């Protein structure tokens, strides 16, 4: 019995790993999707309180401003030691919307006036134009919380994939 259980766990983890590997790149329309990016510090430090936001969702100046004010981050204290903060800030800048060449990042970037430095993706014109048919009450559902919780509706949001085949609005 126990042996069976171990076997099952092994098989499940092997198949989960291969599924992950298979989906490791990005989906079909590659110049539209954001590229896969990775930084271990960013992944642990920026996913404790919410989903991981792809750096290609905001321009460099936005990330720069956000990383300079982590002690007052949307009403919470998200401060880091200096070394971690600088490493993450560099990573975000390097992969930001104005340093990327994919259609999504370009569109987000173009929707932000040159004089503006938004800290929220959910307040950019690109975002509001894509979600104008969704009622405010939908975003407030218990299963969602707010517009900032992209991953509640976009299953592959953390990979920067917002394609329509990956959308499901929870009740």
């Amino acid at each position, binding site marked *: 019995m*126990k*042996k069976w259980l*171990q076997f099952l766990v092994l098989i499940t983890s092997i198949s989960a790993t291969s599924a992950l590997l298979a989906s490791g790149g990005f989906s079909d329309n590659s110049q539209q999707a954001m590229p896969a990016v990775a930084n271990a510090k960013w992944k642990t430090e920026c*996913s*404790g*309180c*919410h*989903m991981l936001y792809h750096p290609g969702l905001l321009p460099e100046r936005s990330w720069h401003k956000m990383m300079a004010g982590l002690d007052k981050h949307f*009403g*919470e*204290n*998200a*401060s*880091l030691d200096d070394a971690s903060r600088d490493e993450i800030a560099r990573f975000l800048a390097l992969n930001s919307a104005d340093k990327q060449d994919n259609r999504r990042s370009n569109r987000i970037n173009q929707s932000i006036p040159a004089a503006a430095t938004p800290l929220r993706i959910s307040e950019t014109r690109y975002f509001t134009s894509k979600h104008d048919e969704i009622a405010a009450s939908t975003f407030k559902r218990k299963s*969602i*919380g*707010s517009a*900032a*919780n992209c991953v*509640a509706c976009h299953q592959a949001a953390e990979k920067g994939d917002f394609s329509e085949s990956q959308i499901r609005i929870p009740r």
Partner: protein
Amino acid sequence: MRNAYLFLALFFSQQAMAESVNTLLKKYELLAKQENAAFVGFAADKGERFFHAERLHSDGKNVSCATCHTADPRKPGKTRANKVIEAMAISVNPQRFSDEAKVEKWFGRNCKDVLERACTAQEKGDFIAYLLSIK
């Protein structure tokens, strides 16, 4: 035979976890003695009260540690951004309090968010004692 190894590995990793919680408590004990010469020890019941104590934040909202970590530390909690927080009770989640840098980082943030000041070593030790005591 394999099962025996598996069991041993599991056993030692849990021992190692328990070890690191105790090392951490020892550190807080030393600090608590520096803060207060009359320090007598950590108490789970004080930690329990601390965990649940609601405080009026200057932003006008009532907050406590239980706001995000839920009133029952054996259950998963939720952040303000709606992300699940794994349970805090060590019996349910042995990863808790095993990484000193992580513990200090979150005490640093959450104490300031809830109490608008840093936690004392006494409060940290009581808090951990409470979460260790839950079966």
